[in-house]
């Protein structure tokens, strides 16, 4: 039960972060100047947008929620389940951000989600695992905020 609560909490806070950041950025100007001189301005613009700050807080919540999840659940259940955030992101994009999602994109999201589940459930990538402190180690390599790739540990 606690596992599922934490899975849902992780997924929704991670997707909430994505949706808030996307709302914050899409309601402002389109970034165009990425020369070294403009880069600082672009970063300042990003980190001072209110919605993006809220989104960042959601990412932080998702990270600690994932830490909690990894301490109570088996990795082979917990990590694949967080791939649900691809689906939640897409539903949020459709109904919160009012994006029009063509069928190809739905199909693509379904393939990506299935692929991610297959990849993360099948054990270690990138590291020969260190098992002394699995949650901390795994959380350092799985950034739930943007579903980073490496999954560690047996």
């Amino acid at each position: 039960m606690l596992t599922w609560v934490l899975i849902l909490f992780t997924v929704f806070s991670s997707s909430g972060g994505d949706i808030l950041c996307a709302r914050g950025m899409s309601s402002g100007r389109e970034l165009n100047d990425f020369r070294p001189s403009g880069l600082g301005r672009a970063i300042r613009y990003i980190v001072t947008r209110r919605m993006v700050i809220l989104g960042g807080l959601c990412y932080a919540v998702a990270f600690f929620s994932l830490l909690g999840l990894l301490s109570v659940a088996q990795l082979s259940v917990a990590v694949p389940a967080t791939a649900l955030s691809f689906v939640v992101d897409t539903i949020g994009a459709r109904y919160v951000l009012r994006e029009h999602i063509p069928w190809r994109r739905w199909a693509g999201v379904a393939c990506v989600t299935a692929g991610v589940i297959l990849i993360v459930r099948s054990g270690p990538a990138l590291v020969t695992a260190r098992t002394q402190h699995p949650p901390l180690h795994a959380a350092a390599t799985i950034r739930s905020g943007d579903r980073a790739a490496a999954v560690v540990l047996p």
Partner: protein
Amino acid sequence: MNAPRPSPRATKTLVFIAVAVLANSFGNLMLALGMNRMPAFAHVPFVHYLVGLLANPFLLPGAALSAVCTLAQISLFSWADLSFVIPCTAASYIVTTLLGEFILGEQVEWARWIGVVLITFGVVLVAKTPVATKPHPAEIPC
């Protein structure tokens, strides 16, 4: 017959997705290598552990690459759909698997390869859709 030139926005999108994916994959590789050199958290005093984290040659660059990935992804949101960006950045799982197989010499099991094929197929499908499906606020006539 020349192929139509990609629009500046399409080129920018491709570059930013590539930056996000590569920064994510290599950032994770460095974080994973760095954490692999750390002592067990429970076995050393907290301050030693903290010093170890900061002195580790892989962890700070790994964290910096993760920050680059996040900034690239958030920048993409200023012109591209969330439902376009998120599935495309999943290509980092493909790069990570290839890094594991060819750089670290891990045994990558068949289920993971099927996952790679599925993600590739999914990303191609999403990439065939328009980058943005609603007009940017700046383009909406007042």
